[in-house]
């Protein structure tokens, strides 16, 4: 749990939004995420200056500019290391990373593995629409192998899709949840829990792309509330996730108890003079 301090002044969700108009298509699930995120920040009562939203490249990664907190819009796939450096240098900030399935699991895949391992106290929100929307509709790591809607892979990718929650669990993520963009209130609740839970929190959001995957509109009818509550047993969570069809949403799936990564300081008096003395003859 980071230093999420409840301030006397109470802001509403809209106070956490900037006045910049999102570029997203109407119908995009990311609008729901922006609403839920700002609602969660309001519920957490975090002063806007104590929150940082870090992103990479993609439609989902445009979110920082739409908030009124500190933001960092970096390069493709590298949001997690930026957030890691920021949180380790400024542990009192609440650091949230927003990304998509391409940015997060393709080019960002390696950083994803190691961020889960490192278990720094940040929250990772991944808007998964199983497509690269920003670049006009290519298959992403979570796209089904037989999706033929992309000009780059007209016969489908033919490759097994990436399973982010399974990989995240195996790599050491300390909190795992999946929500649907069609359920923004519950999403807000889970984001609050994710931020409050210490260590690396992973929230996958099924967030339809209305332009390149219009068939995802039916997700709102396919998703179902997960039947069981979260487990703190990684092996049990692994079995559930490995047999999950990807549409069990609305609940936390796993809460671990690994202590978050925090560097140790060893400040001594004399500091730099001591270091220099080690070279003296």
């Amino acid at each position: 749990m980071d230093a999420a301090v409840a301030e006397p002044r109470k802001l509403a969700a809209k106070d956490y939004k900037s006045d910049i108009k999102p570029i997203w298509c109407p119908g995009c699930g990311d609008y729901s995420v922006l609403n839920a995120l700002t609602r969660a920040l309001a519920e957490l009562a975090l002063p806007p200056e104590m929150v940082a939203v870090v992103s990479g490249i993609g439609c989902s990664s445009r979110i920082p500019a739409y908030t009124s907190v500190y933001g960092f819009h970096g390069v493709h796939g590298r949001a997690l290391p930026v957030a890691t450096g920021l949180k380790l240098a400024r542990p009192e900030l609440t650091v949230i990373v927003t990304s998509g399935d391409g940015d997060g699991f393709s080019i960002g895949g390696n950083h994803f593995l190691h961020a889960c391992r490192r278990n720094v106290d940040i929250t990772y929100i991944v808007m998964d629409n199983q497509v690269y929307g920003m670049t006009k509709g290519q298959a992403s790591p979570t796209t089904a192998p037989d999706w033929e809607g992309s000009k780059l892979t007209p016969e489908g990718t033919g490759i097994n899709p990436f399973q982010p929650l399974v990989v995240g669990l195996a790599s050491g993520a300390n909190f795992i949840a999946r929500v649907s963009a069609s359920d923004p209130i519950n999403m807000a609740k889970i984001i609050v829990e994710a931020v409050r839970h210490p260590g690396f929190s992973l929230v996958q959001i099924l967030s339809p792309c209305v332009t390149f995957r219009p068939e995802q509109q039916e997700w709102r009818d396919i998703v179902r509330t997960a039947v069981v509550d979260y487990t703190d047993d990684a092996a049990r969570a692994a079995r559930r996730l490995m047999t999950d069809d990807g549409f069990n949403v609305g609940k936390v799936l796993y809460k671990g108890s690994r202590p978050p990564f925090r560097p140790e300081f060893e400040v001594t008096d004399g500091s730099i003079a001591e270091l220099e003395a080690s070279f003296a003859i």
Partner: protein
Amino acid sequence: MAAQSVSLVIAGSGGAGVVTAGSLLLEAAANAGWYALMTRSAGPQIRGGEAAAMIRFATEPVASHDDSFHLLVAIDWENISRFAAEIPLVADSLLIGDPALGDAPAALLRNSPRQAGLAMSEIASSIEGGRPNMVALGAIAGMIGLPVAAMASVVTRQLKRKGQAAIDASMAAFNAGLAAAAGLPAVPRLPAVDSAAREERWSITGNEATGLGAIRGGVRFVAAYPITPATEVLEWLAPSLAKVGGVLVQAEDELASINQIIGASYGGVPALTATSGPGLSLMIESIGLAVAAEVPVVVVDVMRVGPSTGIATKSEQSDLNIAVYGMHGDAPHVVVAANSVADCLFTTQWAVHLAESMQTPALVLTDQLLGQSRAILPRPAELAFIGQRQTAVAAGEGQRYKRYALTGSGVSPMAIPGTPGLTYTADGLEHNELGTPSSQASDHQAQMDKRLRKVAGFDYGDHWADIMDAEAGGGDIAIITWGSSTGPAREALERFSAAGGKARLISLRLIAPAQPDKLAAALAGFERALVVEQSHGGQFHRMLRAFYDLPRQTLALYQPGPLPIGPARILDQLNAWRT
């Protein structure tokens, strides 16, 4: 420096303990009040391979290796030919080997050096716990004039935990070697020095100096990914940062390192990473992000032979191109280069100051030769450069905070997260003054002008270059160089000057942005220039031609790694021009 120095090599393989011997010798020389420079070379094996320690001792600070070695002591001959090109011997050189191990290989005999035998293994085996490398050290000490007491104190300290018996055995072997030296041919000797009367001296490598410069400059966050020959910068920083309340984190790759330090710096903490050529290539995209988003970071490149994997353990000055030109788009930033082991400290500390002042990446180019050389040198002076970032504490009355405000200097006050009322989103996308993404031509022009103005208009003072004149002053020959080529160039100039020659040495510390007015002033009246660098493609020369006016008679002297340019080669050209 042209005065008194002696250069020697200790070589051997497997358990010969060459590296240990070299370190002991260096430390003893330090205790004796001498100055020194030590480099090392090794075969590719992780353990047990052949190794050579090359040391130059002098009574004054040492800038560079000599053109040849006075003495080579080979504990054994295993694969020593591998080093032949790096340990040039001349007729006056003395080559000492163990007679029990056969003849010296032909590769070492090309210039017919003097030869002598020293039965190191036989002498060592006659002493309980004696080792051939200690016998060698004794002989070397006797030959070059190193006081016994200096070695005794080093051995005592090094072997204290192994017990008195080990200390006694080592000193017995040393003394046996020392006795044997009496019968060996002479090599140059150095006079004894009253070390107590000396100025304060340090034993330090370029990589350690780089780390210290970072901390002195205010760096308190480092992300680390190991790569030869930069790893020691990070290894030194790991415990050192913790002592001053800083953080070092090992990253999963260089892409993570550079982005972690960008994140930390965005959060207000001066941050640095160190890498070599291949790592810098990986970081280039994100260094461009730091330029566009105006986030200060320092990236140290300890250059090695390229391209690609190249020769990781050897030095070259061939990352200049990527450091200066590597980013896509026009991305003005700062590139500085250290020109000596001591200068690694100054230049890194200065780089932190520059990065923080201008909110831009500063690349520090050092190389394997500087980074992994250990020098006994005068204690470096304290410097006033501490990174100072212009921060925003409040927006103007009734105004929205403009993170990328168009100021005269080009530097805009930066809001640090945690400061109320000044939230903004840093962006690699082109943006307007508020930081809002913009594709407008006027915004791009304005921001590009601003980012250029802030580095081009900065007052770099006198540190842009080190300028050294021959004793006589004046003359019309200028040597223009940078980085580790400066050491041999300095030595060449000293020899030239001692013989009455006149020339000026200009070693650029500020590589980018170019300072054409300053170089023009330094070159005023000089009609001939010799450009010296260690790259196959003449990168430095081409950069000079791109940004500077050079004298009509300019000669470029360049060669690739792995061998350093020797002072004689530079001196030859100076002499050729003198006549």
